[in-house]
């Protein structure tokens, strides 16, 4: 289990004037799910890269499990964090599915005789085992995204960062993958940070960080942020179905509990009222 401490970070690309991120601070608890949401170009991906040490902040500090992210600690940081990027094509290194999953294991110097099982297990988890010897050109975008995730799962990192990593999956497959990730968080204590526009994925989070114009405009428990329909509409992710239903019920003069209810909770509440 590993937590993340981000303290006052500012980041500016060398050739730009305005910083991409300004004075960002937050904590990620071990074994929690944090969703980072915001407009395109708001700096979400940059923030994720900073956490993984792929970019070094202009000011401020980041600690992963008590280790400060810097050039000297990159090796250890990369071992703690598994990063699934947006474009699955450009992170597919291997000649076949199995080779690609093996890439991370090879970097960690896992012995060849131990790799087979790890590869099979990881591919099984994402439902890609039967595509083991397939070349990337014969896979769809969604399948490549699953393989990218398998490549991370084979390494069993303590933290998984998903940068719109389920964007090419069909709704059913996305649900499967999200259930898998939820299980991993509960059973293995993996912390998950997901950058996403997808409401289902956002609803799974324990905490939500909303970034706009290089700054955190809101952070807190998912239930609090998801209640704020004005903010959600403003950043363009839309309002969750359950929240919309609650609003509609409220306008008809029905008294609802003053907290966020997900679909399941709302259903239970409604059936209680009807009895």
């Amino acid at each position, binding site marked *: 289990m590993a937590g993340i401490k981000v303290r006052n970070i500012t980041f500016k690309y060398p050739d730009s004037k305005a910083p991409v991120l300004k004075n960002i601070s937050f904590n990620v608890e071990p074994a929690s799910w944090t969703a980072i949401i915001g407009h395109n170009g708001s700096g979400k991906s940059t923030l994720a*890269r900073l956490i*993984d040490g*792929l970019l070094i902040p202009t000011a401020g500090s980041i600690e992963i499990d008590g280790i400060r992210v810097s050039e000297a600690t990159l*090796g250890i940081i*990369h*071992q703690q*964090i598994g*990063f699934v*990027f947006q*474009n699955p*094509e*450009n*992170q*597919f*290194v*291997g*000649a*076949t599915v*199995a*080779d690609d999953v*093996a*890439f*991370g*294991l*090879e*970097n*960690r*110097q*896992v*012995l*060849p005789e131990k*790799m087979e099982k790890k*590869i099979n297990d990881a591919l099984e988890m994402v439902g890609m085992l039967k595509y083991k010897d397939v*070349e*990337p*050109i014969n896979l769809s975008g969604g399948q490549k995204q699953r393989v990218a995730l398998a*490549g*991370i799962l084979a*390494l069993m990192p303590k933290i998984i960062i998903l940068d719109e990593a389920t964007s090419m999956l069909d709704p059913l497959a996305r649900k499967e993958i999200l259930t898998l990730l939820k299980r991993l968080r509960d059973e293995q204590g993996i912390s998950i940070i997901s950058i996403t526009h997808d409401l289902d994925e956002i609803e799974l989070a324990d905490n939500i960080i909303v970034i706009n114009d290089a700054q955190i405009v809101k952070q807190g428990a998912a239930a609090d942020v998801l209640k704020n329909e004005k903010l959600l509409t403003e950043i363009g992710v839309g309002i969750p179905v359950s929240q919309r239903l609650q609003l509609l019920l409220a306008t008809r003069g029905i008294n609802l509990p003053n907290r966020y209810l997900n679909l399941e909770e709302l259903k239970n509440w409604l059936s209680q009222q009807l009895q």
Partner: protein
Amino acid sequence: MTNKIVFGSYVPVKSILHRLDPRIKLIMCIAFVILIFFVNSWLTGLWLFLALLLAIKLSNVAVKQYWQGIKPLFLIILITVAFQILFSSGGKTYWHWGIMAITYDGLINSLIIFYRFIVIITASTVLTATTPTFQIADALAWIMKPLKIIKVPVNQITLMLSIALRFVPTIMDETSKIMKAQRARGMNFNDGNILTRIKHLVPILIPLFVNSFKRAEELATAMEARGYDPNAVRTHYRQLTWHSRDAWAGLGLIIVVIGLFSIRIFF
């Protein structure tokens, strides 16, 4: 599966050659290419040609498919041969005009060059048709291993090579996408003389290059995130193991070599 093959592409059928270890296939292919330069008579030429025919037969890939693979290169071969005929001198002269002449030596030379071209290209096509590219990369890595002693970064080179090969189909795909996009904007690639046609390549090449650089950068970031360190020791998932059939193939190669030199000495 389409039975049209481009030069250098893998043909997924079952054959004894497909099952051989890529290392022995690569060694045989390289040895064969070297042997071509020891051909000095009709008989030695015929001997190697027969060996090649045997390889083609064993590869279970139709001769027609090999021909389709060689066809695009045929024009280049013909031009080279024509130059040989016209611009080399020596021996009896049959015809001449200015600096051009057809001579006995020129004809013989061009014949040798024609033979070498065809045989070398076919031999390497046998290798690529029966061996997936990533296996060829593995074999190359193995063959280059001794170079580590003189500090050649063999691991980096082979990873580079296998990534390059892995992205070939991706980039071909992208090329056809860009061409379609340009066609949709009214570009006609089949119109005009050769100069206009070359000019028409520019709007394909520029986006292709820009995208490739972008890809390379993203790939490098992803590799770094997955713990790749060019200077660190890595293990290898794909392990090659020798089988008895590979020894038989090696024996076959030795027979070809002995045969060639016996013919050279005794005939």
